[in-house]
């Protein structure tokens, strides 16, 4: 039987709590990985590894946390993302909520796209497609 959203959230919460060394109470659905939970680049690798183990899924490089966007000069203009960059990012991250980021796509605000919900959505999608 496929796990419910609630069950998925609880497992993701445990993974993030372990990976980031934070209390479970801090891992709310809307919490951002970097701003609220203190994650930084090296933690994203750890999170991917732990999610793969927990849910027995394969997460190809760049599928959960796109790494191409900051490597392509056509997607960045100074401190903002170009429209092409934004479209590419949206296509690469159907599991994220872009409503706030779209209004002002400043690159330094990009980490705000990575919330706990983003991860739960991603895992939900992966399990449904399996």
């Amino acid at each position: 039987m496929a796990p419910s959203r609630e069950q998925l959230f609880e497992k993701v919460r445990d993974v993030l709590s372990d990976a980031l060394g934070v209390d479970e109470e801090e891992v709310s659905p809307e919490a951002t990985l970097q701003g609220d939970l203190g994650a930084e680049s090296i933690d994203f690798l750890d999170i991917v590894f732990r999610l793969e183990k927990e849910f027995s899924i394969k997460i190809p490089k760049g599928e959960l946390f796109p790494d191409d966007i900051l490597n392509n000069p056509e997607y960045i203009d100074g401190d903002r993302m170009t429209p092409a960059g934004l479209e590419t990012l949206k296509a690469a991250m159907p599991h994220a909520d872009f409503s706030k980021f779209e209004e002002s796509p400043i690159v330094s605000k990009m980490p705000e796209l990575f919330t706990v919900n983003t991860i739960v959505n991603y895992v939900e999608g992966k399990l449904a497609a399996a």
Partner: protein
Amino acid sequence: MKFGLIDRIVEHVRGEHIVALKAVTLAEEYLADHFPTYPVLPGVLMLEAMTQAAAWLVRDALDFEPGVILLREAKNVTYKSFVRPGNLLRVEVTCRRLARGESDFDGLGSCDEQEVVKARFGLRHWAAGRAEGFLESVDRRILPDARAQFESLCRASRLRHGTGASVR
């Protein structure tokens, strides 16, 4: 890679408080991959800068006795914003506890008066020769180098040592 991240010590109260600067430049090798079109100082190195500032406080307070100083733990590390080439990272570290072998700190990193990182962390330190007698020669080499480096880091700010006073 040059791992000494602290460029200047600007405030120092012996055993209590230290403020240091780290300038971020495009010459830093790790920026080439982090990230190619948008270089930013890795978060772990923001924490490392705070750790190193704390280590200088420990060395000075313990008369440069410990040659080995390592991060023991880091808690509640939060990152608020990116630090980019051309920025000056200012780390302010307050000592909460200082024992001979361990110490605890609160650290705050800021750029242009905007907080970018905060952490509570602890260090472990010892003289290499105390752990292994044959390493005493290592201590003897490290000690004067460390003193000289500390003097150099403080000199640009004209800080006086040995008085426990800070000079802005």
